[in-house]
Structures are given as C-alpha cells and as structure tokens.
C-alpha cells in the first residue's frame, strides 16, 4: 500500500514537472528565437513575459473545438489523444536520481525500474507515429495527409538508425535497463567519451523523431500550411503542439541519460561522503535537469540556425548515411571490446 502511494506521488510530481517544462519550453523557444534574431520576444504578460505560456494555454482551452464535416469524427478525436498519451507515458522508466531517504524509507527516484527500459521508450516512440498518421488521415485534408505521410515515413526511417546506434550502448552495459546504464556512468565515465559517433547518430535521429527543424518537413509552413494538424483547433491542436514539446523534453532526457552521464557528475562521491545521502540526491536531480535544459536549448539553437532539408536529402541521410554508420559503429565497438579491451 505504501509503495502504491509512494509511486502515485512520484508519478504526479513527474507529470506536473513534465507539463510545466513543456509549457515553459514554448516560452523559452520564443525567447531563444528572439535572442538569436536580435529581437525582444514576448514581454507583455507579466515581468519579461513570464506569464505568456499561461495566457496561451488559457486561450487554447476556451477556443472553439472545430471538427470538419468531411473528417472521420472518432479518429479525428483519437489522433491527438494518442499523440499526447504516448508522450506522457515515456517518463515512467527514466531514473531522475538514485534514491532519497524520507520517513525512514528509501524512495527510488524512478517510477518503474523495468529491465527493458530502452525497449519501452522505443516502443512508445513507435506508437507515437500513429497519433500523427491517424490525425492527419482522419482530417480528410490533402495538406494534412501529405504532412502525416511525410512525418510517419521520416520517423520510421530514423527509428532504424536510432535503434542501431543504441546497440553499442547496450553492448557496453549489457543491459537494457536505464537505471543500470545511468549507474555505470559513475562520476565522469560518461558514455559520450566512449561512443562519440553513436552519440552523433543518436542526436540526429532524436531531431528527426521529434519532427524538429531541420527535419520539420511534416509541417513546413510554406508548402503544407500546418502539416498534419492543419484542421485542428482548441486543445486538440494544443495536444499536438504540447506532445511535440514533451517529446523534445523526453529526447533531451534520453540524450542526457544514455550519453551524458544521467545524474552523475565529477565529485559526486565527495558530495555523498560530506553532505549526506539526501543532499547528494537533490544535487543529482539538479545536475540531470541542467543537462536536460541545455539539450532543450540545443534543440532550439539548431532550429533557428539551420535551414530545412529537402525530402530526398532527408531520406538519403537517414537510410544511406546514418544506418551504415551505425552498423560500422556497432561492429567497431563489438570488435574492440571482444579482442582489444576486455
């Protein structure tokens, strides 16, 4: 019973943090874009425009919820639901820190420590394609259809290279559990130092999977209006946009967890010995979140720096460059660890 209560509280806390981060990513995006383009950005709602996401959210709740006459009504409603649901489920297997001691109990800062964590995340990533495809098809709008087909075909193509690039990490740790992978990157032994090529492939795939620029062909405004969510309004549109930002947050978390040492930082043992277990846990969570926020910033930085790919260039990069590179990376890792460095 205690365990269920403990897990429920943890789930609700992580949910709230996810939603707040997704909300404020929209604010951060506009501020970063403004900064990179030498503008001011939103500054009307509250000091420095800090209340802007709340205003946007509130407005979205009270807008007309429009469903086109020609659309498939139920699928049209189901699409954004799937997109949001899959985005919210992945945070369950991520270790946010080691554990915290409270009320005489040792509370793990991970919702579910399952031994197939990576497969769980990849699985939900694949289901996310359905949210876009179902919504885009059900709209019965040519632009939505084109956007949906482009998005799903792009996402499945990059999923291959992503799956292949993670294999090298799994080989090094001999586990699919994210908590084991995080634990093994003690202090400064971050995986990026051993897997630089794997990291590069993974981050490019992460950009493509989240449909972020330079891979945002699914909604390239100049040709497809809004892509798969052209016909959506109110909170259904909100769900699609929100799911994108949550996916960006989860991708940044996965990059930090798999390659940038998760919650580990140099000198963590010193902190653990001198300040005690709970302080260490708090600093660990803070370290993980600063890594995540850096990568979210990186996502935005790239978006406002690089121009969009052409579709054939995108497919060329995914299939003919990243997949062979990922296989080579896997073979080098395997050969090196079998014969040279045992």
């Amino acid at each position: 019973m205690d365990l269920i209560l403990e897990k429920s509280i943890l789930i609700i806390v992580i949910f709230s943090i996810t939603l707040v981060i997704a909300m404020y990513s929209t604010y951060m995006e506009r501020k970063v874009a403004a900064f990179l383009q030498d503008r001011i950005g939103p500054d009307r709602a509250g000091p420095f425009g800090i209340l802007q996401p709340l205003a946007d959210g509130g407005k979205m709740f009270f807008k007309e919820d429009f469903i086109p006459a020609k659309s498939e009504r139920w699928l049209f409603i189901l699409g954004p639901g799937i997109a949001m649901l899959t985005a919210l489920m992945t945070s369950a297997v991520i270790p946010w820190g080691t554990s915290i001691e409270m009320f005489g109990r040792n509370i793990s800062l991970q919702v579910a420590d399952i031994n197939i964590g990576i497969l769980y995340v990849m699985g939900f990533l694949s289901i996310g394609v359905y949210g876009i495809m179902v919504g885009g098809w059900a709209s019965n709008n040519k632009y939505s259809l084109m956007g949906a087909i482009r998005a799903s075909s792009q996402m499945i193509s990059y999923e291959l290279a992503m799956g292949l690039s993670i294999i090298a990490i799994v080989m090094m740790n001999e586990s699919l559990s994210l908590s084991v992978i995080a634990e093994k990157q003690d202090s400064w032994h971050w995986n990026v130092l051993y897997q630089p090529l794997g990291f590069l492939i993974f981050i490019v795939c992460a950009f493509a999977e989240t449909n972020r620029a330079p891979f945002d062909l699914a909604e390239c405004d100049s040709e497809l209006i809004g892509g798969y969510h052209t016909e959506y309004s109110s909170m259904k549109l909100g769900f699609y946009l929100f799911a994108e930002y949550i996916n960006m947050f989860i991708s940044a978390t996965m990059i930090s967890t798999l390659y940038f040492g998760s919650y580990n930082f140099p000198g963590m043992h010193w902190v653990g010995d001198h300040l005690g277990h709970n302080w260490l846990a708090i600093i660990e969570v803070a370290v993980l979140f600063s890594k995540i926020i850096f990568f979210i910033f990186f996502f935005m930085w790239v978006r406002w720096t690089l121009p969009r790919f052409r579709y054939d260039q995108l497919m060329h990069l995914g299939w003919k460059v990243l997949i062979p590179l990922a296989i080579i990376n896997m073979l080098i890792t395997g050969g090196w660890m079998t014969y040279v460095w045992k």
Partner: protein
Amino acid sequence: MLDSSSSSYMPIVLQSIVALGFVGLVLVLVPMLGPKSKGSTKTDNFECGIEAQGDARVKFSVKYFLTAILFVLFDVEVIFFYPYAVNFKSLGSPGFLAVVMFVAFFLIGFFYVLKKGALEWEK
C-alpha cells in the same frame, strides 16, 4: 538485482491510468468550454481559402509505401541485435563472429535495396 516479475510493471499501470485520465478528461471537457458555430462553408476543409476540390482520399507516391515495408523488414533485423548485445561479453569471440556474419547478410539485403533504387526519391 533487477526482477522482471510483474510487480515492477505496477507503476506503469498507475502511470497509464493517470495519463489516460488526463487525456480523456481534456478531450471530453474542453469542447464544452468554447463557442460553437456551424455552416456548410465553415465546416468545409481548409484549402488556402478557395473552395475545396474533392477530398484527401487520393493516390500518393508509392515510395512512402516502399519505405514502410522496408522499415518493417529492417526493424525486425535490428531487434535481433538486442538479445546479442545484452549477452555480449558472455558470448565472446564466437558470438561476435556470428554477428559479423549476420551483419553481412543484413548488408547484402541493404545493398540489394539500394541498387534496385527503392530509396531514390528524385526518379
């Protein structure tokens, strides 16, 4: 150590209840909040302001279908690498050579697809 028993999946059930509840509640309640207006032009599909020509049940490039079929094929092969990667050290040199052979088969298929031009988008 890790247990793969069903108890470690209990929190995932909890999380899916919370997520389903949130998504369901918003999708049911929010449409009641906003204003409503109807009309044949209003509920028509958006097509840059001009009258919509037909609907979206049209033919599209077969390349997308090919990509999807190839994805299924290669994703199954990628999944075969995972059990090997988990047992990597205990399998040692014989395991690695077996995987090199598997990769060779994988690449033969891959180059066949490339040579056939299945992934050429300009043609």
